[in-house]
């Protein structure tokens, strides 16, 4: 019996020594381990951190660059915000007004901002003077609004994840069905018009990118099964910029060409959400590192001169 105990103690000491050795090795390697990564698959681009929570936002989802200002649908911070170089971050609307989870946003030529909310539902507006209102809410069938786009006729198109439909909302708040269930779009997460009037729709439940042409015909543009799940799409200068929160990638799609990856994200930066492009062609990507604890980043991706 004492012999057996001696063997056990000796083995225990050995185990402890090995475990400590392994722990040291793993700790030293953890020091080398990178907690957030951006891999540029296109060498002509470079990445920088444009903004962090230090400027005051929470965990933004949709973002929009317009005339030197960055507008944020701050899902984590439950607010619509605007940032510029001189004034910093300003809240345009917050949770006190009834929004719960700002999702995506658009701005019309007059400077009025419209945004969706996948928890509170509806289409919300902050006009150019700062006046806030719920343009159309749950009472009109908008239960979980996702992608939002500005139609050429000035109306707002908004996708609803619960209804699996796309609705048209006029500036006076009238709601009608634009794309019904017969189009079989599961979750219209993001929408954008190109310069020819075609509407691109990102469905991140079916993992498909659709295009609705000007004859109201719906086409599947990208369907890569499990390898592609479009989160946000933004159209600029003849190309679509697409974020994919499942694969943690930023793509560039030019019609009739292959889908091209610009960057892949890892670690703290893997949850890519919104994307927008400024006048110079610089790309901004919002990252929700931790939605629950309001940790987010805005990463700027620029062409190297």
């Amino acid at each position: 019996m004492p012999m057996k105990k001696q063997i056990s103690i000796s083995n225990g000491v050995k185990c402890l020594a090995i475990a400590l050795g392994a722990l040291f090795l793993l700790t030293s390697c953890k020091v080398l381990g990178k907690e957030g990564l951006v891999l540029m698959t296109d060498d002509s681009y470079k990445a920088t951190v444009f903004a962090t929570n230090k400027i005051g936002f929470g965990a933004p989802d949709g973002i929009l660059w317009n005339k030197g200002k960055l507008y944020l649908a701050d899902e984590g911070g439950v607010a619509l915000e605007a940032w510029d170089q001189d004034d910093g971050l300003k809240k345009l609307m917050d949770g006190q007004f009834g929004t719960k989870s700002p999702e995506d946003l658009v701005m019309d030529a007059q400077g009025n901002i419209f945004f969706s909310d996948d928890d509170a539902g509806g289409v919300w507006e902050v006009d150019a003077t700062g006046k806030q209102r719920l343009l159309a809410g749950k009472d009109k069938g908008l239960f979980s609004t996702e992608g939002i786009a500005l139609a050429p006729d000035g109306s707002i198109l908004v996708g609803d994840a619960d209804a699996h439909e796309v609705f048209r909302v006029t500036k006076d708040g009238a709601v009608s069905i634009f794309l019904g269930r017969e189009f079989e779009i599961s979750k219209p997460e993001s929408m954008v018009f190109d310069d020819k009037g075609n509407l691109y729709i990102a469905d991140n439940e079916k993992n498909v990118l659709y295009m609705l042409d000007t004859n109201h015909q719906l086409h599947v543009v990208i369907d890569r099964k499990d390898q592609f799940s479009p989160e946000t799409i933004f159209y600029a200068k003849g190309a679509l910029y697409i974020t994919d929160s499942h694969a943690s990638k930023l793509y560039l799609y030019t019609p009739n060409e292959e889908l091209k990856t610009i960057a892949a994200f890892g670690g703290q930066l893997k949850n890519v959400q919104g994307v927008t492009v400024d006048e110079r062609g610089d790309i901004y990507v919002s990252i929700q590192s931790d939605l629950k604890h309001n940790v987010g980043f805005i990463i700027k991706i620029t062409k190297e001169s």
Partner: protein
Amino acid sequence: MIYSIALSALFAELTARLTSLNDQILAGMNGMAGRSWFFDSLVGLTQGNDLVKAGLIGCCFFAAWYSGKTLVDTRARRKVLLMTLVAAVCVLATTKVLSHTIFLPRPAIESQKIYHLSGDDLVAMKRTNVRVPLDEESQKDHRDLVNGDVKTNDLGSFPSDHAGFFLAISLGIFLASRRIGLVALGWTVFVILAGKMIQAEHSPLDIAAGAAVAITELSVLRFAAQSRLGAILDKLSLWSFKYSALSAALLFAVVFEISSTLFHIRALLALAAAARLHMMMGG
């Protein structure tokens, strides 16, 4: 204060030396690639073909299961091998969890332009020079990478799950039967793991960390096998004699899975997880 400064300096020095050694070994191993199509194809075969890669390990496991000159000896060996299987599953789970926590891309990926988060800044990482093997599979992977097709799995290669899994199995076989174990260990180190470094899929650091996980967990389980776990393993090894036909059939399934790094079991688990998600979403 002085002690903490000295410790920090020592830690920094150790880390720097470890990194330098890692880079040197990797450069040496990967330096063998990209020179001969035949050699690269042979190395590729040991990485991509389950029969070549792990078939031998499976055979060793089978041989160790039936080795032993007496009934008592065979039973003791089976007990060790059963403990090894538990350890191998734990090791695979640990390495997967760690690789999702620590983000060190594969050396082949590090040849690309990468920025890492340092505080509130993105800092460009040092790009590694990697020789691309000439076999078709590696060339295709490289073309995909250049075209921007990066697999998410490639962004977290630390620690190596292959190193952890196969070293746990080989060490377990070694504990059960020295002679057979040496064959398994030799194949794991000089064929499977060396191939990973030649192809720049893993750095020595990834492999060392995988090995550390394997040794630690195997040791802990070996320690646990002396108490309550030992009683269960005893019963199981006894049961393998009592129901020899059924245990042989189960052993075939186990060895088959070892040879494919639990690929089919993982696929089944992924399907179960997807089905659960599907049901939760009301699909």
